[in-house]
């Protein structure tokens, strides 16, 4: 009898693996437990995790990862600017761009890091940061929209989640999903710390940065912002920092980025007579 039970549950587990059905997986686990075989139930549960790991990360998991990374960004950069009107303005520009991005159905929030360096980051699930130093270099709303478009593109293209998958492998995490966050919090910390190191110290891959420039430029232009504005900002940053010391260590140099953005404007026929909204930007950011 017991042998039949094992065969039945094994068959169900196999069908679960092939069909990818969560209900079948749970039923098979229940049958295994009821037939007095908790070990087999554990194997079936593990098989579910392995199969589940082949699917993309869902928003709930992404949100936990994004929050943990955001905690480190805020801690490393010494807190955020507490100016409600300015924060609301930057968020309004971000939301206007995000609403017609390729992923408008998740919440995006922008915080201004109280730091003089010139930088911007995006964590999964729509956590976006710009430094006070970068905001001071920006001259109009179209340039701000392009910067936020770049960061929104990192989120919509799930660039950071790719880094997370690699961090998980480096940390030796075999469990899928967030189950390891509670069962093995040290492993979760290792994964987040690995991703933070890549994001803040090493930088993302050059290919991802070029992709974010291109996609972000399209997002900002869709709302009606001037497509040439980003070229103006990148050119000023090149003059300020030079081509050998690009914004991030692994970013393509500014000249290559400017060329790629100009190519995007040409090939995608983006409007270079769009809105700049310099007056509104100056009014809202005068206390930066």
């Amino acid at each position, binding site marked *: 009898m017991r042998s039949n039970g094992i065969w039945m549950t094994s068959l169900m587990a196999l069908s679960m693996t092939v069909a990818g059905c969560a209900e079948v997986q749970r039923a098979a686990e229940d049958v295994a437990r009821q037939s007095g075989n908790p070990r087999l139930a554990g194997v079936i549960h593990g098989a579910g995790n392995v199969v*589940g790991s082949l699917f993309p990360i869902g928003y709930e998991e*992404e949100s936990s990862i994004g929050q*943990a990374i955001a*905690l480190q960004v805020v801690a490393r950069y010494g807190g955020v600017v507490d100016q409600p009107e300015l924060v609301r303005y930057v968020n309004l520009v971000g939301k*206007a761009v995000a609403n017609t991005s390729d992923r408008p159905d998740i919440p995006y929030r922008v915080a201004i890091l109280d730091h003089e360096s010139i930088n911007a980051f995006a964590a999964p699930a729509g956590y976006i940061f710009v430094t006070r130093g970068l905001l001071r270099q920006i001259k109009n709303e179209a340039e701000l929209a392009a910067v936020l478009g770049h960061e929104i593109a990192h989120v919509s293209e799930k660039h950071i989640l790719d880094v997370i998958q690699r961090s998980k492998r480096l940390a030796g995490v075999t469990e*899928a999903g967030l189950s390891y966050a509670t069962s093995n919090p040290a492993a979760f910390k290792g994964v987040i710390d690995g991703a933070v190191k890549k994001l803040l110290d090493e930088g993302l891959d050059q290919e991802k940065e070029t992709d974010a420039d291109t996609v972000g430029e399209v997002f900002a232009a869709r709302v009606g912002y001037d497509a040439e504005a980003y070229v103006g900002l990148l050119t000023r940053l090149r003059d300020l920092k030079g081509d050998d010391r690009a914004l991030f260590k692994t970013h393509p140099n500014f000249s290559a980025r400017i060329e790629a953005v100009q190519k995007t404007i040409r090939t995608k026929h983006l409007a270079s007579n769009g809105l700049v909204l310099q007056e509104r930007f100056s009014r809202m950011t005068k206390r930066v």
Partner: protein
Amino acid sequence: MIPPRSFWVPLIALWIGLFVWGTEAWAETVYVHAKTAQLRAGKTSLDAVVGNVKFGESLEVVGRDGSWMEVKTSAGTRGWIFANKTSTSKPSGGNDTLARLGQSMRGGDASATTASAGARGLDKASEGYADRAGVSARDREVVDRMTAYQIPDQDVEEFMREGGLGEYAK
């Protein structure tokens, strides 16, 4: 000699059938590619709103004029939508079917998040991370407030209207 009725009836039926099939087959479909979108009675942002459509909803294209597109919803509502708020391919969004299925199969994930994930408060996994990493109460509060930060969609629309952005272009 005029062909008999038995000749014309099937021919007319075939012609009608082909016409109906052709209309269906050639109807262009687009999808709502924005968090919020409104259908208007005319092709300007000043025209009255005749309906709201959701992200990912399919729309049948009836006509085009500049930056605007006349569409019909599956419920039969007809109106104009700003073309930049549509796409020809169905958007998958932030949490597509595959991701939901994967999360369901992985199981146990729900225990790592609070029931109010996405609302105010750090979830269990990030709270645990903050403890282990020694993140200060002040920095936790910052991310907590950031997570809860919301701006109503109407305010974003008003901001765009004031700036002449999107469908409010002058």
